[in-house]
């Protein structure tokens, strides 16, 4: 298996991009990544997108995007694993380069979610839950994560204010991210006094609906010098892990424990020969504030039941011992579901290159990205290292 490097990243300001289409934003992010890498050809494409069909009435994204990027007839594959589609697309691209099948692979993630109503978007997202056992009873993701939050609060005595600390931290971080959809600082009081969406989750505990895309270029480590004309510092992919779990929340032994994240992280740590304590900067899937707390525990950063205290006491802040989501996370940066996993890689590559200005984790050399589908039915974890 060949060592694989990320040699280019691309994104744009996320938000309600009503002047642009699904293909426009994919192409914009991809061209930015191609420019950043300075490559003159692409061998194949992976596109993470959860539901072009329900959000835009558009499937067959592989060929569509290859065409509009001006790269047809290269092979192009659309990858779907709910909100982990982007992370999984990255893993597939990494495999293709590592295996020797292709040398230069463009991995893009895209979702255009605001062209339909909020109700329709909520329905589209809910198809990532178990439709037979969850969907039929009318539950959607805010309700599922509210049950996780309620169980966590009952088990460990966590408070709404501790959950709110996740949102406050991520918005503070996002206020320094020019790509963030909501780069506004908020307070714990604002979060706990915002509209209740699904008790105990307030609207400011929830990530937004977003249009956005992100893209990265992968190539073999050994070819970086020949392929990349920009000489940006290369970032090496040293660990990759992917695990599944029941997509129905009720089928798990412990609602607060994200088994897929634990197992995907274990696989990635094993491959990289690293431990949680080695990681200097982390991007996680904070689709709801409770998710970030559970994820940091499943990654092994904190003991079970200690994640809420950890964020409330500033341990995951920039400048804290375990900085999490310096980009602003899904909460502030936005959550175009298929793009999220790729955007995490974009942020970490910039962190490892030292390009993050105000939100830079000083001297970061080791980074971890955790991207999750549904209520934890799938997780993809990657470890990146600066070289």
């Amino acid at each position, binding site marked *: 298996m060949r060592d694989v490097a990320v040699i280019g990243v691309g994104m744009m300001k996320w938000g*309600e991009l009503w002047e642009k289409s699904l293909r426009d934003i994919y192409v914009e992010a991809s061209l930015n990544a191609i420019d950043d890498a300075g490559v003159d050809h692409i061998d194949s494409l992976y596109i993470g997108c959860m539901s072009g069909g329900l959000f835009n009435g558009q499937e067959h994204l592989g060929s569509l995007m290859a065409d509009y990027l001006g790269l047809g007839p290269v092979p192009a594959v659309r990858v779907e694993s709910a909100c982990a589609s982007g992370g999984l697309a990255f893993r597939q691209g990494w495999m293709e380069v590592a295996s020797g099948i292709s040398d230069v692979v463009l991995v893009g993630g895209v979702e255009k979610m*605001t062209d339909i109503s909020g109700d329709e978007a909520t329905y589209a997202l809910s198809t990532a839950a178990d439709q037979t056992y969850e969907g039929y009873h009318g539950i959607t993701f805010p309700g599922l994560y509210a049950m996780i939050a309620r169980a966590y609060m009952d088990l460990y005595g966590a408070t709404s204010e501790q959950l709110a600390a996740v949102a406050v931290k991520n918005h503070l971080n996002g206020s320094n991210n020019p790509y963030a959809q909501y780069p506004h600082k908020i307070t714990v009081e604002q979060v706990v006094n915002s509209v209740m969406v699904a008790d105990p989750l307030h609207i400011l505990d929830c990530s937004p609906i977003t249009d956005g895309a992100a893209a990265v270029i992968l190539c073999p480590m050994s070819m970086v010098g020949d392929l990349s004309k920009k000489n940006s510092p290369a970032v090496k992919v040293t660990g990759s892990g992917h695990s599944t779990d029941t997509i129905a929340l009720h089928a798990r032994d412990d609602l607060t424990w994200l088994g897929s994240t634990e197992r995907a992280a274990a696989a990635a740590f094993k491959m990289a020969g690293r431990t949680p304590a080695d990681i200097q900067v982390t991007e996680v899937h904070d689709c709801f504030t409770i998710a970030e707390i559970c994820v940091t525990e499943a990654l092994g950063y904190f003991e079970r039941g200690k994640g809420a205290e950890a964020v409330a006491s500033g341990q995951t802040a920039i400048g804290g011992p375990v900085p999490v989501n310096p980009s602003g996370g899904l909460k502030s940066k936005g959550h175009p579901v298929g793009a999220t996993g790729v955007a995490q890689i974009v942020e970490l590559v910039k962190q490892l290159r030292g390009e993050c200005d105000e939100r830079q984790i000083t001297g970061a050399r080791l980074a971890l990205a955790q991207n999750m589908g549904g209520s934890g039915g799938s997780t993809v974890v990657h470890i990146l290292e600066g070289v």
Partner: protein
Amino acid sequence: MEVGIVGYGSSIPRQRIKVEEIAKVWGADAPSYKKGLMLYEKSVPAPDQDVISMSVEASRRALKRSGGVDPQDIGAIYIGSESHPYAVKPSGTVVAEALGATPAIHCADMEFACKAGSEGMFVAMSLVKAGEVQYALGIGADTSQGAPGDALEYSAAAGAAAFIMGNSNLVAVCDFTDSFMTDTPDFWRREYMHYPRHAGRFTGEPAYFSHTIGAANAILKKSGMKPDDFTYAVFHQPNGKFPQRVGKMLGFTNEQMEPGWLSPWLGNTYSGASPIGLTATLDVAKPGDRILMVSYGSGSGSDAFVWTVTDRIDEVRDLAGKTRVMLDNDKYYLEYGAYAKCRGKIRMAE
């Protein structure tokens, strides 16, 4: 030739419903509507109030302030509304008949979502300017519907404003007009649909804000005026927040907007919204005051007017009911059940 408003009047139903009362029924969060959209209560038409009856009332008030205009000299009537009582058959015929303005009168009903009233005012005034008619009546009136439980239900209200346009004895001279329109479908109702549909947050930036700002900037450029050249400004008001925000973006102060800012207590009267705001502003204006008015209608477009108030305002202001007085007094609060009856939301035996 100077043209403008000879007489003006408004009509606002006495019935109101509070945001809390609607929110209670749907299990919604009233404080978020009050704080987020600055909506507290809205007018509700009584069973005998519709676009036609409110237009008649507003027009009679306009006649009272017109200095004796003979209805027979009104040569055109244009009622702008998205809730004309009939899909086929004009509202204007009934109103003109009730006013004694028939039969020598041009008439057609207008529709452009919330912009139809200001368009009616523009066309009425333009016919006077062209010399085709001596006086013309431009009316904006609506008994708007929001689907039960929809965000629009908290704002969709009822009201009317009428303006007799002419070229002498003016209350307000129209110095400039402009319009700004694109194909931007943010809100619509197809035939046979009882309630309109809307595109959520898309109704904000690309629709209301872009067109209102587009028309305002166009007329400021055309007139060579700046926000401080105006005593007052009136904007279309689908809720309390949008007009305040757009005014601030354009450089107007709350003091300039205050007299015409009615929506927190009136709701969104659609075609009536900025025209009623203009009547409330004229009610307090002094001779020489300059007023900017910008409407907005989904689909989408905005009309802009620059008005200069004349000395005659002091003579006519008190000749008919004032808008703020109607808004603030003799209110009658409904519970949701009676409101549902008045708005035809209850399915009756067939």
